[in-house]
């Protein structure tokens, strides 16, 4: 039983980082543009399908295929930002609803292109590492490493680079930031596009672990938002932590309790946290 617990905790951590990357996008977008982009899951789906196409159909090696995937997601993100989100800045509800409309468009397009038939990408890396009874697939470890790396890089970038500082300043106090000469529109678009690129990256890695369907995005964005709230909107480390907590809760929860309730365990946790600490675990007290 102990190995089971240990193994699933580790597995939960890894799955959690996938939630975390979406959560990171949610947090960034919310901090800078004041909206929650519920379509992030769809950009993840785009990244995943492009990776699958380039790797399986075209036959590029994975490390190469991953870049066009990210680019594609980012490009779509840029289009969406210029055509839609630009007009819903700081209008939470409208932003929410626009992104919901966008979901149904992107999903339908994916259906046209790839049908409901699931796509399972060839294995980039198969087999598992075994420590005693505990076994973890190699690919999952790689994914975990890559995601964690990207998140910490993002964190570093935001605390070092100028754009990062600008973004931080802006999220703290827009007026002051603008007086400091931060070009709001550019900053906001950059962040929206970056978050979609993150989602695309997440999708590319997702494709190496799981099979793909057009409806995959819907589930992930919910988890991402839950994770972001858990960790506290506006906190980068929080979004990673939130994702991991969510992943572990689900994995461990479904060992001891019915698996059919898996999604509930996360939700209950979120509600509890929010009531105990409305600003989330790592969020600044308001």
């Amino acid at each position, binding site marked *: 039983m102990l190995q*089971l617990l240990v193994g699933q905790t580790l597995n939960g951590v890894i799955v959690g980082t996938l939630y975390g990357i979406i959560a990171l996008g949610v947090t960034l977008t919310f901090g800078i543009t004041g909206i929650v982009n519920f379509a992030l899951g769809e950009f993840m789906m785009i990244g995943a399908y492009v990776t699958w196409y380039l790797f399986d159909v075209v036959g590029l090696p994975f490390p190469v295929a991953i870049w066009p995937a990210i680019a594609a997601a980012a490009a779509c993100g840029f289009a969406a930002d210029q055509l839609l989100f630009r007009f819903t800045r700081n209008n939470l509800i409208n932003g929410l609803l626009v992104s919901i409309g966008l979901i149904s468009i992107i999903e339908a397009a994916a259906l046209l292109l790839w*049908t409901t*038939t*699931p796509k399972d990408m060839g294995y980039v890396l198969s087999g598992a590492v075994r420590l005693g009874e505990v076994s973890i*697939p190699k690919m999952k470890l790689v994914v975990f490493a890559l995601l964690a790396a990207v998140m910490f890089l993002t964190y570093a970038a935001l605390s070092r680079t100028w754009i990062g500082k600008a973004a931080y300043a802006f999220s703290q106090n827009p007026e002051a930031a603008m007086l400091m000469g931060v070009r709001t529109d550019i900053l906001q678009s950059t962040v929206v596009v970056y978050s979609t690129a993150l989602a695309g990256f997440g999708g590319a890695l997702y494709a190496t672990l799981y*099979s793909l369907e057009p*409806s995959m995005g819907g589930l992930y964005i919910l988890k991402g938002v839950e994770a972001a709230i858990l960790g506290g909107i506006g906190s980068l480390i929080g979004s990673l932590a939130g994702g991991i907590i969510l992943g572990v809760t689900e994995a461990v929860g479904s*060992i001891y309790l019915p698996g059919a309730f898996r999604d509930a365990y996360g939700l209950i946790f979120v509600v509890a946290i929010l009531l105990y600490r409305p600003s989330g675990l790592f969020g600044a007290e308001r």
Partner: protein
Amino acid sequence: MRRLGCMVAALVATASSPVAAQNIVKIGQIEAQTGANAIYGYMSSHGLALAVNEVNKAGGFKVGDKTYTIELIASDTRGDPKEASIQLKRMLETEGVKFVFGPFLSNVFVTVEPYAKQFNGKFLMMGGATRIHDFIGTPEHDFLIRTWNWDAGPKGFGNLMVDRLIKETGVKKIAMLFQNDQGGKVLVDIYAPLFKQKGIETQLELFEPGTKDFSAVLAKLAAGKPDVLFPSYSDAYLYDIVRQSTEGGYFRKFFLVRGSLGPGLKNKDEIDDYFVYVPKYFEQAEKTDPKVAKFIADYKAFYRRDFPYDQAPLCSSSCYDHLFMLIEAMKKASSVDDVARIRKELLSMTYDGLWKIRFDEKGEEIFNFDVVRMKRGGQLSVTSVDVE
């Protein structure tokens, strides 16, 4: 636009009388083409559209001395009972459709059933939904024809599959892992008792549709040391379950009554035994059976995308065959609207298309199927089972 027209027609008092056009046979289809449970409906709509296109391209079909073309009215229910019930009303009353294909979804069927009943004898409903099984053959339900092989019952394949499994693998304990939706629940209700009665111990776990990471549930199930895993019914999950079972070393033996061989072949070197029910093993039949080859070629040409060798062709090919069966029956009955006669002909014929299909006296479909068994390394043994 045409439909706006008939809306107007309907708005002008006399709407209730159907607008039957000359030398056109209207075929309706109510399936979920989008949404969470769309996979069956989506592909059956593909199959039917393909068949209709073929018939019309060939200039229609002759019944008596008249030549008829087919008008297909296929609407997307999104798996929403509300949509379906509205659409069926339109088909039966406004459009005067006499032959309705679908639904594959039980929730849609039970919703429209009370209404459809009122038109008993005026139309035929050829659906695959499992719940049709509860109504078919009962009074006032002559309009029902079930277009899918049924797991349970003496003629059902479930029985035969389980026997074969026991005979060939000597399984003692089996773990069931299904998504918590209609299909999953039906399978549990059918197979749990079946195993029990044959003295096989079972473990059961359900998962939320949309789950992708199964290692927790798999580990939990494996802890109970069952011999075989009986997973999901849809490739959308099978790929993940099979891969994660083998990678994690949880399971090496699988038993499937839905879904394709794809997941097994993909992990062939990790799998000891992959036991799957396939109404027709397309990958093989394509090479041997010209009809199948033609079907696959036509599909590729018509939809300009390559052919999905997962469970989807089962739906598409079955609906494809059923249209030609129906036309056959019309010719035999030398009428396109005498529903009773056409039904009689349908039930009395044995159609030899992509599949060898016939119906029992109640209207339950019976077709032979293949059991494909894959051993480690991927060598396959295909046995076709004759239901009779």
